[in-house]
């Protein structure tokens, strides 16, 4: 049975069916991401002073990934335009560029951004013990300046056995610059271009620790939101890449040879999805990385 209205328009809607289908789907996606963004905003507004991390993401890498996604939107629309002009070779190259951009985005996310977070630790100090770690927290000076108190010491864990061995009584943390030199006024503000961990190692007794987590979704509401939204977005990017791969492989050339407009319509629908996914990132980037 042939699927109707894949190329010609339906008389009652004035559109071919897939276009209505994709817009209904995108409307549901708006509600999905809209709910998640709203949750993020309310969590942030309700956060206690000093408990909302800021400046923990790598802005240069995020900016590069944003540029890659914007470029992919340009190439996908050029691929579609090439099909409309019946230039299959140009379409093939533009589609390859789009797929490459999607893969680069995912690669950077999965091999650079996320793993860095999982190997970075934050130690939340019990309120009663914060004075003991004043040399790493610098709260006296922050109090005087009316700044929010620091409640966490961050860096790279040197003794991983401390996570599992109850006989190891303290964590050894190679400190981030913010805790290595907490009274330096430049550390009052977040560093958007990440600085490497220092050689200075702090020994923190487990008895003084409220909790200790890597920068995963379990660390804070901020990272829970970050991983949920960027993970869901990444899944959408992966879905788009798979669809584009199918449209790029030789199997789609048969569709093109049978009816070029049919393939152009398929690419248009997939391109609309891709633009939506990229548009979501345009909101994700400033919300999580900059503000």
């Amino acid at each position, binding site marked *: 049975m042939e699927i109707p209205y894949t190329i010609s328009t339906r008389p009652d809607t004035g559109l071919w069916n897939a276009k209505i289908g994709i817009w209904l789907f995108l409307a549901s996606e708006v509600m999905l991401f809209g709910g998640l963004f709203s949750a993020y905003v309310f969590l942030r507004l309700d956060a206690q002073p000093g408990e909302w991390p800021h400046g923990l993401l790598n802005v240069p890498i995020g*900016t590069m990934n944003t540029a890659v996604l914007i470029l992919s*939107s340009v190439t996908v*629309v050029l691929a579609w*335009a090439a099909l409309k002009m019946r230039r299959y070779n140009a379409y093939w190259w533009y589609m390859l560029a789009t797929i490459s951009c999607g893969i680069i985005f995912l690669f950077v996310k999965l091999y650079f951004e996320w793993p860095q977070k999982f190997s970075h630790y934050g130690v939340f100090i019990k309120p009663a013990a914060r004075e003991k770690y004043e040399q790493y927290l610098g709260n006296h000076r922050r109090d005087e300046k009316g700044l929010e108190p620091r409640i966490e010491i961050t860096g790279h864990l040197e003794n991983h056995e401390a996570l599992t061995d109850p006989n190891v009584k303290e964590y050894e943390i190679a400190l981030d610059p913010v805790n290595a030199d907490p009274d330096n006024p*430049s550390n009052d*503000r977040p560093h958007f271009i990440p600085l490497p961990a220092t050689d200075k190692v702090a020994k923190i007794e487990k008895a003084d620790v409220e909790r200790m987590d890597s920068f995963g979704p379990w660390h804070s509401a901020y990272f829970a939101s970050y991983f949920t939204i960027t993970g869901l977005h990444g899944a959408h990017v992966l879905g788009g890449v798979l669809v584009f791969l199918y449209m790029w492989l030789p199997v789609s050339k048969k569709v093109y040879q049978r009816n070029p407009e049919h393939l152009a319509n398929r690419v248009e629908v997939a391109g609309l999805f891709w*633009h939506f996914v*990229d548009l979501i990132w345009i909101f994700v980037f*400033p919300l999580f990385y900059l503000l």
Partner: protein
Amino acid sequence: MSLKAFHIVFVIFSTLLALGVGGWCVWVNLVEGAPVYLAGAIASFACALALVIYGVWFYRKMKRLRIIT
């Protein structure tokens, strides 16, 4: 909405993002005094300009090719 129209909307949002990032870099540079942010601001504003030029080019090309009616 067609892909070409959505693409123009997307380019507008991308341009706004580039302007926003440029403004953010200027602000961080004023607060921190770090020249690297000034370079970021210049790059962002240049990207915004490039996106505007591209958007106009795209619209004209689609219209000329009668892909935009």
